[in-house]
């Protein structure tokens, strides 16, 4: 793949209303899903924020899949990346909550939980993204690329 094949940026991004609407709709859906997970998963006894952890890990796995799917199956689609990658999964996962939760854990004396949370989120998130990309390449082999 040539760089940047990343889900969000393009050398000349399309700022047309249809693309922005797809991102807005996806963002609303992703944010609502994140809110739902936050309601369903309470923090652990040591304050470990499981909701954000699982949101970020599952979203990274799904984005890996979507990136391959978009490139290999729907290269012509104008809405797939804006809606699914930038919108839904971009808004479903969050970076600011991860770091502020880590800062708050450390500020309240839970140093080891803070360190464990930040490190495990990064390691598990990267492993999940890699797994998603690999799984996508198995599911949608290169030969089908046009």
């Amino acid at each position, binding site marked *: 793949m040539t760089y940047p094949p990343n*889900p*969000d940026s393009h*050398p000349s991004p399309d700022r047309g209303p249809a693309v922005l609407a797809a*991102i807005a709709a996806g*963002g609303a859906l992703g944010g609502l899903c994140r809110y739902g997970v936050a309601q369903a998963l309470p923090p652990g006894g040591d304050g470990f924020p499981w909701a954000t952890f699982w949101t970020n890990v599952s979203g*990274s796995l799904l984005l890996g899949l979507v990136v391959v799917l978009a490139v290999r199956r729907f290269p012509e689609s104008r809405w797939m990346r*804006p809606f699914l990658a930038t919108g839904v999964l*971009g808004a479903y996962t969050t970076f*600011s909550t991860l770091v502020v939760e880590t800062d*708050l854990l450390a500020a309240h004396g839970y140093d080891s939980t803070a360190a464990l949370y930040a490190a495990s989120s990064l390691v598990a998130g990267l492993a999940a993204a890699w797994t998603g990309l690999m799984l996508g390449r198995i599911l949608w082999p290169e030969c089908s690329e046009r």
Partner: protein
Amino acid sequence: MSASAWAAFVVACSLGAVARYLVDGGLQGRVAQRFPWGIWVVNVSGSLLLGILVGLNQHSHLAGVPLTIAGTGFCGAYTTFSTLAVQTVELAEDGRASKAALNALGSLTAGLVAGAAGLWLGGHS
């Protein structure tokens, strides 16, 4: 949350995602394409903003529902973790190990500092 609070939350999520797209696209077009500075700046700036909002909330200037809308909704959707993870893996696969490490660890370190600075700023205003 009330119906209007839910509506505001949904709009905040949409605005966050669109803002991320525009900031990322605007920055990425101006700088070298070999490092994902766009998402880097989005994540660090969003962490500063969320820190400020949470810091304000600790002194109850901003109660629960407004924080959910602006913090969980806007900042949560503006910043992203999945793109950071996928971009880092792609840099590593591309043989750019040091850039991958800089992206992952640099984002996390700068985000933690920005979040802490925001908490301090919000708590002291």
